[in-house]
């Protein structure tokens, strides 16, 4: 029966992350906090990040509501970037974004993404791409927010 095709999107690992999301909690006194919403479906991600003086992500946590894809993606994203530097994390966000848009990407870069790479299957579900990218977008905006404010200040 055709629901078996759902397995190509909702792989075991994705369902596991959705069932038991990692890092799903708020951080107290996080160095950076970012909330993003997907207006189409109402999904919300609040992302908390601790960056140390070397720009390494030393702690990460998220809260919010959303579909299986957005929740598991947030969980996998958190796993993947924890312990990475800001620049490494931003590069991973770019890789993830290229991957789900079906753009060319380096296999080595992809390996960096860990579990999150499994969401490459989302390419065949264009309406769900935003679900997968929501938490990565929150990450990007969180990491760039200081810079952003600076450049806003310059303008």
């Amino acid at each position, binding site marked *: 029966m055709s629901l078996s095709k*759902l397995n190509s999107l909702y792989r075991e690992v994705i369902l596991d992350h959705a069932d038991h999301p990692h890092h799903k909690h708020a951080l107290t006194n996080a160095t950076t906090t970012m909330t993003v919403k997907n207006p189409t479906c109402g999904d919300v991600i609040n992302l908390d990040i601790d960056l140390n003086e070397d720009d390494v992500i030393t702690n990460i946590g998220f809260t919010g509501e959303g579909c299986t894809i957005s929740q598991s993606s947030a969980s996998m994203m958190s796993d993947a970037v924890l312990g990475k530097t800001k620049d490494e994390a931003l590069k991973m966000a770019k890789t993830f974004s290229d991957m789900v848009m079906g753009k060319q990407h380096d296999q080595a870069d992809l390996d960096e993404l860990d579990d999150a790479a499994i969401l490459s299957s989302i390419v065949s579900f264009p309406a769900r791409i935003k679900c997968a990218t929501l938490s990565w977008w929150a990450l990007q905006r969180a990491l760039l927010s200081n810079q952003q404010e600076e450049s806003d200040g310059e303008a």
Partner: protein
Amino acid sequence: MKTDISDLRGDFPILDQLVNDEPLTYLDNAATAQKPNQVVAALTHFYQTDNANVHRGVHTLAERATAAYEDARHKVTHFINAAEPAEVIFTKGATDSLNLIASTYGEANIEAGDEIVISIMEHHSNLIPWQQLALRKHATLKYIELTPTGELDMADAETKITDKTKIVAVAHASNVMGTVNPIAALTKMAHQHGAIMVCDGAQAVPHMPVDVQALDVDFYAFSGHKMMAPTGIGVLYGKRDLLAAMPPYQFGGEMINFVHRYESTWNELPWKFEAGTQNIAGAVGLGAAIDYLENLGMSNVQAHEQQLVNSLLPQLTADRQIEVYGPHDPARHTGVIAFNIKGLHPHDVATALDMEGVAVRAGHHCAQPLMETLGLVATARASLYIYNTQDDVDRLIHALNETKEFFSHELIKAE
């Protein structure tokens, strides 16, 4: 002699396709309806025999195109029982129609301190134009709330509509909860307080007989694409006196009488509100869609959908894992049904149903304030039309059961 409504599928080749290897079950009719061959043929015929710009031409094709365009207006006039074709304005769609009223009648008549009353179940297209008008004019926007069963609270309407009210704007039928609102009663209330009544008929005209004179509404808006006409065509009905007193909406070709360097005068109704080249073929297609519906008979259309609702709705409300929003009484319900599988996000549900070939919508259905009021972020929505069958209902139920099974792990967690 009416056509038999139980056997229309042959007119809709789009329905005869596999989606994800399953037969397509199209249940997203509240978003847009499919087009019968007759409508596509009308478009093709127009483009391949009569196509020309209207009104301004002396030559034969221009005369034929003008006749076809104005003939479509006559069909609309008859279909909604407007008093005369001058009261039927072609627009891009319901959204365009509603913005037209807010930007012309609203802009000219609303002042600081005035009140505009809408309902909390409005589609964004009958909500934001009034919200923004109120903000621009420092007027007050008021919402009529819902009863516990998801119907319009008429007692609340009585308190919200006052002598300060200038405009009441309410949907004829909800695009989320499947409720039909008592427009004639609201219109009476509005008129008693000297307000005008605007009705958003986008979810009504395709599905039930509508008589604008019987409703006594001042303005009535709807879209062609939801009633099997092409995209990009809609209607604004308005009472002649109001339309005649209103300033034009857009400026350009055809809506003028005389244009001088520094001033202009406007054409008579309805053309005053039709600036530039209109969606001529779209209007012709709308005429063909009306022919198609009238051939079936609007009461038959309504009865057919009611029959399917009578089967579908009780199955959904009886399911403990499913939550249905809006009235649970099939007799008080159009073919639009919003629901959720408890513990599952509607986007996951819609994706799963799509795997079974079943097309439903998931999201806020352009009714975020309603969602907020219901305490929801999103719902799934199945919506029926004349070409749907008991088979489609069965397929939806089956696919929902499969979906629950697939995601059973998460569902168990949610219980």
